[in-house]
């Protein structure tokens, strides 16, 4: 047994597949098979036709044999009607625009709440920074679903906010915030906030405080120093945080499904319904490809920023 293993190892190392090669090859092959190839399949199926069968899509490639003529041919059928459907139906276009709007508002709300938080933590006593950051990340470790669920009880008519407003005397009846765009904004901001605070904090913390001192010595007011020094220097953090929130938010499904109304149309919901309710796999694939096309530029910027950060860390 030992000799078999050693022969195998030396054989593999001769073709460069042992040691370093294996360490790279295992995750590489895993990602190629389970991340890259699936996208190609989605792309392929987005050109097929929905049929009643198992699986419910037509094959793109067919080998046809003509018995009489004695010839056979390879036929490739590309059905582009799925994409025409996406472009021609207001529902899809509206869903895409809605998703972009909701993701943008969520990103801005995360920035508005997250920037002052990250700034305050970065300015705090060094010994307290760790625990303060820990408190920001901790909710992220509890279930995402549970956190969305918590807001249902708060936002619904006769819920916590509604009762509070009535008790204070601002309103006289139940107020229903649930099942509206606002509920979706609040829920998504709540869930994505840690993703915004983390990168912001790490750029703000690295900032050299002597720059601000120099500005103050030269007579700059704190607010002016903030605008002309802190804000530009924290731009990489703002970009990274915004992308970490914006990209997944565009394709969000759970929050609009649980907190949004029936008219809170988002592309993630459309994809889900095409797949599960209509069982139209080709259209669901086309929706996914179109969503990816919308996101490809932000994703590439994100990878660029992420790569730069990894380089800087070294």
């Amino acid at each position: 047994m030992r000799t078999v293993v050693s022969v195998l190892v030396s054989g593999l190392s001769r073709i460069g597949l042992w040691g370093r090669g294996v360490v790279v090859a295992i995750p590489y092959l895993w990602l190629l098979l389970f991340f890259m190839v699936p996208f190609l399949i989605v792309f392929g199926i987005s050109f097929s036709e929905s049929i009643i069968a198992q699986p419910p899509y037509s094959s793109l490639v067919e080998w046809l044999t003509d018995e009489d003529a004695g010839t056979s041919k390879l036929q490739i059928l590309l059905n582009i009607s799925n994409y025409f459907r996406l472009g021609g139906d207001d529902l899809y276009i509206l869903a895409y625009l809605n998703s972009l709007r909701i993701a943008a508002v969520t990103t801005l709300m995360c920035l508005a709440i997250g920037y002052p938080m990250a700034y305050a933590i970065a300015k705090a006593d060094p010994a307290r920074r760790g625990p303060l950051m820990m408190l920001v990340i901790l909710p992220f470790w509890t279930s995402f679903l549970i956190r969305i669920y918590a807001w249902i009880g708060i936002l619904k008519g006769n819920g916590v906010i509604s009762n509070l407003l009535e008790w204070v005397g601002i309103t006289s009846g139940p107020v229903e915030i649930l099942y509206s765009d606002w509920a979706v904004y609040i829920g998504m901001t709540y869930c994505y906030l840690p993703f915004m605070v983390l990168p912001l904090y790490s750029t703000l913390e690295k900032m050299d405080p002597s720059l601000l001192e120099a500005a103050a010595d030269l007579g700059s007011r704190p607010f002016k120093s903030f605008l002309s020094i802190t804000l530009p220097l924290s731009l990489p953090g703002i970009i990274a945080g915004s992308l970490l929130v914006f990209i997944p938010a565009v394709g969000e499904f759970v929050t609009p499904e649980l907190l949004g109304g029936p008219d809170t149309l988002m592309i993630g919901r459309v994809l889900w319904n095409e797949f599960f309710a209509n069982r139209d796999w080709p259209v669901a694939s086309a929706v996914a490809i179109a969503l990816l096309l919308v996101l490809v530029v932000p994703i590439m910027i994100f990878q660029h920023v992420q790569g730069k950060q990894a380089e800087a860390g070294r």
Partner: protein
Amino acid sequence: MKRFGFLSWALLFGYAFLYVPIALLVVFSFNESRLVTVWSGFSTKWYAELLHNDALLDAAFLSFQVAAVSATLSVLLGTCAGLALTRFGRFRGRTLFGGMITAPLVMPEVITGLSLLLLFVAMEQWLGWPDGRGVTTITIAHTTFTMSYVAVVIQSRLAGMDGSLEEAAMDLGARPAKVFFVITLPLIAPALVAGWLLAFTLSLDDVVVASFVSGPGSTTLPMVIFSSVKFGISPQINALATLMVLVVATGIFVASIVMARQERQRKRDEQMAIQNG
């Protein structure tokens, strides 16, 4: 901070925003009434009911199994990936590799779920494997999207670490594998633990990807919660949420104490080594 200014208020507001919903969830899990938002007296009956909900307990058991296996696999794969990205310099296809590691971090879940399902269906057609969908396919899917998080955690730990110990061991003639197991692995152990916990939590939390790639008879806990939440709120879910928050808080607390102690010990050892050397 000299005075209680804008920043302190902003911080206070942020923490209140993060914690009040969770606190309310916990409080109302002890509510007598079925109406979750109106307090009518203390009761633990929802916890008792939870213990008799077999469908939920089965789903929880399945979820824990999937989370444990996929977290372990993703730590193995993620460590290899992190090592490759920080220690191997440039190799062929590194750009694509780096891209495939970071893209899942932001990829919308509906796309990941749909694409993996279509892969499994196609593989079943061509290869006859996997035979139907269930625990195996959920585990593979979770491993795929959690390994990126593990790789990033490992990568940042390795990048922040001094490489001179590894180089010294190499200079003294240790083989790369030995250097990894004797030097690198103990040093990145805290990151391995953090990565495993992160992968476990992400897997235990996922409803979208699991809904796509699960089959009949393999319903995970988030899927059960999701379908019951869609029909409205129930105090049982509050009780379950409270238990989950409790488990997470304890886990994080214990892990951070252990890691802080290890870090202190390591610092002390290094100091000793420097003094003695």
